[in-house]
């Protein structure tokens, strides 16, 4: 009865309408980029920005972006997958191990170490990235994949998340039972533990993948060779060339809009398909907060 009353009350309808207005706001840039990706450069500047026009140039733009500058966009796409994939795999394992140690062992200085790690969440990236640039320079690692991957593997937040998952999903009685059976610590971690915290692993893997895919500042500083750019850096460079130059040789807008679309589709798909994980992940993080 209550539900029925709520369904038809004017305030319910007004609130629902406002929620839909907000949805339009959040979806507008996506709609705009989809429309823009179907237009040639001249159509882009002369037709209604919020509606399609004919002829439809979607496939032309795919072709333009794929062939421009020796198909470098696909190289950037591959780079982004390499950066995000390796960081995601590495971070997940490293954080799972560290979270296991913090939640299942007692050792001297445990809390101190943990709070130092947690405290560094507040350190601004510039305070780290400037010295990292000089360190990488000294190690001759500037303009290598390592310069992006190695610093990105350290993620205090995912260690914090994994610690919570170990505490919640892996009962301590299981450890006692495993010890009685003579299982080693590694067997406990890999064979009994990891399958139990797989929800946490998926969450951390997703977050570090997206975080690395979206990272811009670190690659901006340590990568200057265009064939090592991730998509974010490549598209920013294209945009700045196109919007600031009047001369020839600048990438057409069709390449940029299509490039943007290509760069965000995997993320949107990942978020829709894996929404179970980011929701559970953030909730376990925030509950403990």
């Amino acid at each position: 009865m209550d539900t029925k009353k709520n369904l038809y009350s004017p305030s319910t309808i007004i609130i629902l309408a406002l929620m839909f207005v907000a949805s339009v706001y959040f979806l507008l840039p996506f709609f705009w980029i989809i429309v823009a990706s179907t237009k040639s450069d001249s159509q882009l500047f002369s037709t209604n920005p919020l509606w399609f026009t004919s002829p439809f140039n979607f496939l032309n733009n795919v072709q333009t972006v794929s062939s421009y500058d020796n198909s470098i966009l696909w190289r950037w796409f591959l780079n982004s997958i390499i950066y995000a994939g390796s960081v995601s795999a590495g971070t997940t394992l490293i954080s799972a191990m560290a979270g296991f140690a913090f939640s299942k062992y007692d050792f001297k200085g445990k809390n101190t170490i943990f709070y130092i790690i947690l405290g560094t969440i507040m350190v601004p990236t510039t305070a780290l990235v400037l010295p990292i640039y000089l360190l990488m320079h000294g190690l001759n690692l500037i303009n290598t994949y390592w310069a992006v991957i190695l610093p990105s593997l350290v993620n205090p937040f995912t260690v914090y998340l994994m610690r919570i998952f170990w505490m919640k999903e892996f009962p301590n009685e299981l450890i006692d039972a495993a010890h009685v059976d003579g299982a080693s610590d590694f067997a406990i971690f890999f064979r009994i533990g990891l399958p139990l915290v797989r929800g946490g692993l998926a969450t951390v893997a997703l977050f570090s993948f997206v975080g690395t895919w979206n990272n811009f500042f670190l690659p901006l500083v340590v990568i200057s060779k265009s064939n090592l750019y991730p998509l974010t850096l490549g598209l920013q460079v294209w945009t700045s060339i196109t919007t600031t130059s009047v001369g020839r040789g600048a990438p057409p807008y069709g390449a940029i809009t299509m490039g943007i679309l290509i760069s965000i589709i995997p993320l949107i798909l990942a978020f829709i398909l894996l929404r179970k994980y980011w929701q559970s992940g953030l909730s376990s993080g925030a509950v403990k907060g």
Partner: protein
Amino acid sequence: MKIRIRSRKYMPFVFLSPFLILFALFYIAPLIYGFYLSLFHKYGLRPSTFVGMENYVKAFTDNGFLSSILTMGEFFLIQGSIMIFLALLFALYIDNEKNHFRGFFRLVYYIPFAIPTVISGILWGFMYSKSLSPFQSIFGLVGLHPNFLASNSLFWSILNIVTWEWVGYNMIIIYSGLQSIPRELYESARMDGARNFDIIKYIKLPLIVPSLVLAVVFTVIGTFQIFNEPYVLQSMTYVSIHFTPNLYIYTTAFSYGNFNFAAAMAIVLALVTFAVSMIFMRFAGFKEE
């Protein structure tokens, strides 16, 4: 704390070592190195000279740096309030099982978080620019021709981008807090005659204070680090390098080559972020665990 695993003393460190080694190399070492750098000054090609706190004195008397921090302070107060308020409203809406389209709104509001902030910056930058903007024709209907990229509207234009990106993220943090409240509390309150509004005011809000504090602290950290959006817009319009501290620090290091002064400013920025976060946490009476 109870001992969970009785093994050899070094076992926890075996699990911690991959993280701790990388943490030492890419967090602790850069911070120490950054501090070391900040104590020197390099004149041209001559070797660095020790100048003690001179760079810090310079930072605290540098009008550009101070103005960038003040701008972000103002940005935090205005944008943070708008964003947390909206995030709270949205979270309350999607938390109430009786409301319609909860899953849809949760996904749609959160999805901008999946987009790289550089790409969001490019997208909104295009949508702001006179020739591509879908807003010009909308505002034109009422005789307005706003220039979103003019220097006096840039603050608000960037505020809009940042809000678009982060409302959903904060909504999820607050929503997670709401979800952890036992539903029985609402039932018993209803039996005592409480209305929805009373439940929000007397049960939900007090119980999600930790989530709100978390959201605000993340906002403080994020705001003082804003870089990507103004950096991207630099190619579309004039953006002062004093707009955000990170923009100024980056320019000082990589355009002017003054790493020493940049390192000092980065450390001051870290301290400011830390101080503001701490003041806020104290203010909210927040305690860890």
